[in-house]
């Protein structure tokens, strides 16, 4: 497999994610479990014998969800309800909604009310990561989730299965990190759009298949890059609106690191194999870059962010704050102030596929690039 053909299974998965899940279900007779992304341990779903499938609401347009959820809800949550209401998610046997903000907490109850025939789980993640009891609490919550999923699939809970799933996902994360590195080295071949397709499809396809497809990619392909690219760091939740990464590519911005759930943040940290597999997952969770909305000692939160930006070599930072996301907006002023003091320019974009035009974003991002590029040697 080479050239454009090698990218085909990833694109097919992103274009029709539930078709991939349907094919898997027909082939294996297994259960398909959806999840609303942030920090849901896919390894636990996999070890229970189910197919974890990420549900990305962002980018979904529709007319049905607003009858069930307030209009001032972020497009990620709104879009998930919309997809459910128009039967795009009928293939799912269950859904896991993590508690990462007030919206997701309310979303779970709305979801459960709208789709009572699915096995729905509310994953109560700890909001305070540096609290002494966080690890113990999370271990109990992950164990509860593992038991619940095994009840759904009928497969006995087995630590060896979980350890094997963790090893598989670590291998997948390493491969995705490698692709991200290639994006920095060969941005004309490993475009942001292509690399994002790898990341998105990983969260939707059977991970064993995805890893095999990745091995067949043309890793040695090279191409001269005529564009002078400006390295940037992006903080946000999910890549929204659709086309934003393609826009960065065209304008000449190179994302050298990001904190997206659907981006680098999701693969930056491995779980490892040292000890009880649930403990391993808990340690991984607590060492992740704090998700927007998690509480941490404020100075530590800001200094940690600044260190990551400076360590990435980025010349500027873009905050891709989802429209109506209070948690993202809450952190941003402190982060911007720290960046300003460090002489790093930043730009806040209100991102959403609902009511935000990509053309408006283009003008802002172009001006931002112009602003940074003038300071470059």
């Amino acid at each position: 497999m080479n050239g454009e053909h090698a990218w085909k299974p990833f694109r097919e998965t992103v274009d029709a994610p539930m078709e991939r899940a349907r094919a898997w279900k027909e082939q294996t007779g297994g259960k398909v479990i959806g999840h609303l992304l942030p920090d849901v341990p896919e390894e636990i779903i996999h070890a229970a014998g189910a197919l974890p499938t990420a549900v990305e609401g962002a980018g979904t347009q529709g007319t049905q969800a607003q009858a069930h959820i307030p209009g001032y809800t972020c497009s990620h949550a709104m879009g998930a309800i919309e997809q459910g209401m128009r039967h795009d998610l009928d293939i799912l046997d269950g859904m896991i909604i993590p508690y990462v903000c007030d919206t997701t907490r309310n979303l779970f109850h709305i979801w459960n009310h709208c789709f009572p025939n699915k096995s729905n789980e509310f994953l109560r993640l700890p909001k305070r990561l540096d609290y002494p009891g966080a690890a113990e609490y999370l271990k109990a919550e992950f164990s509860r989730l593992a038991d619940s999923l095994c009840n759904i699939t009928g497969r006995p809970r087995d630590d060896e299965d979980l350890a094997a799933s963790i090893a598989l996902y670590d291998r997948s994360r390493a491969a995705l990190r490698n692709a991200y590195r290639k994006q920095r080295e060969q941005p004309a071949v490993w475009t942001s759009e292509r690399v994002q397709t790898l990341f998105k499809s990983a969260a939707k396809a059977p991970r064993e298949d995805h890893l095999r497809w990745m091995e067949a990619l043309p890793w040695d392909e090279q191409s001269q890059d005529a564009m002078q690219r400006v390295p940037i760091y992006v903080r946000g939740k999910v890549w929204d609106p659709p086309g934003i990464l393609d826009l960065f590519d065209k304008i000449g911005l190179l994302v050298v690191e990001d904190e997206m759930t659907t981006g680098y943040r999701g693969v930056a940290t491995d779980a490892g194999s040292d000890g009880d597999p649930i403990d391993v997952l808990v340690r991984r969770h607590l060492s992740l870059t704090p998700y927007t909305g998690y509480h941490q000692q404020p100075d530590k939160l800001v200094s940690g962010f600044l260190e990551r930006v400076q360590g990435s070599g980025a010349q500027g930072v873009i905050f891709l704050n989802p429209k109506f996301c209070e948690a993202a907006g809450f952190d941003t002023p402190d982060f911007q102030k720290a960046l300003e003091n460090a002489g790093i320019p930043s730009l806040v974009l209100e991102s959403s596929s609902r009511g935000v035009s990509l053309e408006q974003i283009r003008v802002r991002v172009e001006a931002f690039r112009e602003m940074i590029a003038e300071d470059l040697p």
Partner: protein
Amino acid sequence: MIVAGVDCGAKSTKTVILKDLEIIGRGKVPTGFDQSRAVKESLDMALKEAGLTRNEPAAVGGTGSGSEAVSDADVRVNDVKAMCMAAVYYFPNARTVIDVGAEESRAARCDEKGNVVDFAINEKCAAGAGAFIEAMSRALETPLEEMGPLALSSDKQITINAQCTIFAESEVVGLIHAKTSKKDISKAIHDAMAGRIVSMIRRIGVNPDVVMIGGLAYNPGIVAALTKELGVDHVRVPERPEYAAALGAALTAAERTCT
């Protein structure tokens, strides 16, 4: 050296021809549906005024929301960069630039070379853009060009609360029904718009001298309201302010072609 700058905007397309950094030709046509045609016509018009042919400009800079239609552009210039370059060309001490276009308003801080230091763009709706005054002039059945002078003739303070052009129009209709005079309503409209623009400018900070470009700079009502709201001695307006972005594109094309 001869260069051209073309600003293909939402409502009109403007071209400026520079010879050794002096303006020698201008052209302006409505953009309409066919942007490529508008670009060609405005360029031809400016070349004709300059007494030049199409082959003579050494470089062409394109800017505006339709900049992709400037197919001959050697340089594509971001709208914010173009406005800063033009402001510093007209007023070397300009450090804050306001550009109110038909559908978008922008503010930028710049340095002495016209480089962008910081910027903000209205992101909610047209309530801080030229289309707002146009909609209100229709509601008041007053020609657009009379709106500004009419506002200057009032000293009443009336607040318009709506943040959306459509809802603001309802509010204006309410004022009409309450027998409020046209001049007082016009002032309220200009004050409301200035308030929205200034709150955007304050996000990046105000550094005198303040320069306003774009077609709305012809409106003395909005210039006066902005001056008052900003708390500055004056807001400077260049000659033919609607050509400023095209001029900025031409200046950037000249700069990048020389280096």
